[in-house]
């Protein structure tokens, strides 16, 4: 089976499982008393945030190894992970304000966590724009690798920003030292959702990687412009 087809299957499975997460989150997970139904946005917002940040870390790591080895597979993976990370970051930046409005009373506030997440999104966009602006493949990969490493360096600041600066954003309740402060059924739903987002990340990256490879082949044959 080709890589493209494998990616499509993983994505399809991920989307079906996402429907299962919707069902469990909306029908079989208790409503949080102080926040009401809006709290259920947590089951999508946090896994998307984790993968938006992890995707950038993977872009950075692949970029470091690319600069040493010049292996085009690493550059292809970094480009794929960056595009998928952009999608997850867009989810974070749209579900966050929708959750924040009923709970904080405002769609947006320029505090450290929110501003740094917006900056991550802009870095992702910059990375993708840079890739599309440089025609020479070797130069494109090298410039993108440097930007990818810069993006990776930002991620720890996003995670630690709630400890370093006064913020409206809540402290981590799952990814924290010690036991998660979450009832069992809510934690199960959240873990399922994280698993489904992981499947979707893998499915998207495999498909995007196969697409890059396909485009490179066509580009080498002189049939299309660069990706």
């Amino acid at each position: 089976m080709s890589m493209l087809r494998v990616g499509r299957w993983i994505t399809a499975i991920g989307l079906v499982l996402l429907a299962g997460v919707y069902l469990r989150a909306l029908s079989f997970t208790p409503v949080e008393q102080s926040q009401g139904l809006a709290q259920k946005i947590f089951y999508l917002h946090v896994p998307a945030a984790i993968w938006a940040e992890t995707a950038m870390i993977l872009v950075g790591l692949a970029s470091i190894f690319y600069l040493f080895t010049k292996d085009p597979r690493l550059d292809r993976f970094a480009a794929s992970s960056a595009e998928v990370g952009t999608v997850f970051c867009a989810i974070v930046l749209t579900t966050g304000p929708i959750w924040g409005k009923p709970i904080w009373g405002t769609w947006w506030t320029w505090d450290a966590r929110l501003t740094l997440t917006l900056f991550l999104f802009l870095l992702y966009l910059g990375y993708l724009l840079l890739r599309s602006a440089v025609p020479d493949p070797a130069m494109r990969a090298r410039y993108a690798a440097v930007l990818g490493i810069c993006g990776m360096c930002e991620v720890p600041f996003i995670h630690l920003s709630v400890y370093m600066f006064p913020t409206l954003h809540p402290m981590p309740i799952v990814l924290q030292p010690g036991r998660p402060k979450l009832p069992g059924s809510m934690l199960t739903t959240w873990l399922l959702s994280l698993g489904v987002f992981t499947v979707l990340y893998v499915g998207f990256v495999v498909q995007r990687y196969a697409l890059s490879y396909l485009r490179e082949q066509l580009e080498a044959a002189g049939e299309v412009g660069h990706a």
Partner: protein
Amino acid sequence: MPESVPQNATYMIAAYILVGVILTGYALSLYLRARRCLRP
């Protein structure tokens, strides 16, 4: 007297629809881009 649960289901529904649209839309965009590349 027990505290009432806030009525904010609209926000939750909006977020769930939005996430579904973004993820399905991206999956569809990958499918269409690959199909365009594979077209002879």
